[in-house]
Every structure is written in C-alpha cells, then in structure tokens.
C-alpha cells in the first residue's frame, strides 16, 4: 500500500529541491506549499518538486501547487517537476500545470534546465 506522505528538501545553488514520498493528499500538498513558502520568503525563485517516490496523488493535493506556481510567476521564477509517474503526469496535464511549470526526467536534468534559463 502507498505509504503516508513525507518530504525532504535541500537547496543547491539557491535552487530548492523538494522530494516527496508517499501519497500526496491535501495534507501532503499543504506541506509542500509550506516548505516552499519558507524558502520563497528568503528569495528562492527556482524550485524542483521530485515526485519519484509518489505514485499516488490526488487533485486536492495538487491544487496546492497552483499557489506555488502563481507566486513564482510574480517574481519570474519557475517550478519544474521531475520523476513524474505517467499517470500523475497525465493528471497534471489535464489540470494545465505544465502550461506554467516545467517537467524533466530527473533532478539533475531540472538543475541543468535552470542553468540554461539564465
């Protein structure tokens, strides 16, 4: 069975990497948003959400990420998803998140995409 939600985060070159594990439900989405806010208020504008260990998500959890995208848009920042399960990718596509957020295969690919952005 899918495990309860947990997250870890790290900052590399002023880029925030949030890695989730388990079911991203409403509380999981809220936890991601809180972790983002903590770093955003310190000036972080480039964010990676690594979903490698989250194969099950729900739309309420994902709706919290819209707030992150909105805040990053205001400061010309960017959110990139990595290691997205194909079914989760389809859900995020239906919700339109990839119109404003990127997707890369791995965290390293996402970091590289940020380097090329500047």
């Amino acid at each position, binding site marked *: *069975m*899918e495990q*309860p939600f947990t997250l870890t985060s790290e900052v590399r070159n002023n880029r925030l990497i949030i890695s989730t594990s388990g*079911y991203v*439900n409403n509380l999981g989405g809220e936890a991601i948003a809180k972790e983002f806010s903590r770093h955003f208020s310190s000036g972080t504008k480039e964010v990676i959400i690594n979903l490698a260990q989250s*194969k*099950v*998500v*729900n*739309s*309420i959890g*994902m*709706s*919290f990420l*819209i*707030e992150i*995208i*909105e805040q990053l*848009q205001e400061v010309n920042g960017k959110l990139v998803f990595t290691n997205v*399960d*194909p*079914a*989760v990718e*389809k*859900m995020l596509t*239906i*919700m*339109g*998140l990839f*119109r*404003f957020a990127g997707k890369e295969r791995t965290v390293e690919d996402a970091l590289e995409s940020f380097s090329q952005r500047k």
Partner: protein
Amino acid sequence: MLVKDAVTLKITLPKIPDIELVALEGLDRLAHHLGIAEEKIGEARILVTEAIINAFEHSGEKSPPVRVEFTMTTKELVIFVRDYGKGFEPASIEEPDIRTKMESKNKREWGLKVMKSMSDDFRIESSHRGTKITIRKLLS
C-alpha cells in the same frame, strides 16, 4: 489467449483520512490476480482516488459511508462509487481552468474534470439522496 472472468470487489468505506488507499490496495490485488501490468492501472488508480474523495467531499459529516464497487476484466475496469450525501448539481460546477484558478482563492474542484478526461466513459447522477459515479476505463 486465456481470458479470465470478471472479478468484482465491493467495499464500504467509512470517512477516515486516506481510506481511499484501502480501495487502491483492492484494485492492485484484482489487477495482480488478472495479470494486468502495473503501468496499465496507473490512471485507474487516480480515477478511483478522485471518485472516492469526491464522494466524501459531498457526503457530509453525518452521512453513511461510501460504497465502492470495482468490476475488472483483463480488458476494462468499471468503477462505481455511491455516497448518501445531500448531492449537488454537476452541471453547476464550472469547468476549472488553471489561469482562472491562479487568480482565485479556490484552487480546488478539479476532480470532475480529471475523471471525465481520464476515463473512457463517465456518468454521474446526483440528487438529494446522494451521488452515483460510474466510470469505465479500458485496460488494454
């Protein structure tokens, strides 16, 4: 090729946080029994999750539990979810749009759009006696 008979699973779910994961466990077991590959049921798992959380959203605090029924063959899955809440008017739910949601305080209400878009057939009936959702998803 051997075609196994349809298998059916009926569950009654109380309103407990993350109880939808129990239904997903059942779905996985059915798929394993029928020899359906993990990658084939990824979207089905999202459909089940959305249908159940939608039911709990509309069932109200004092309503009876949510009934869930899966019927699976190697070709397709039919998901039936029934709640006994006060119901809602599905046509009154505005189709969500990411740009509009970014400007709104309410970022939620994506469930119906996800279920309609991801399924091969989606039906919803709702009245003051509750809501029934029937979803068909091809697996091959």
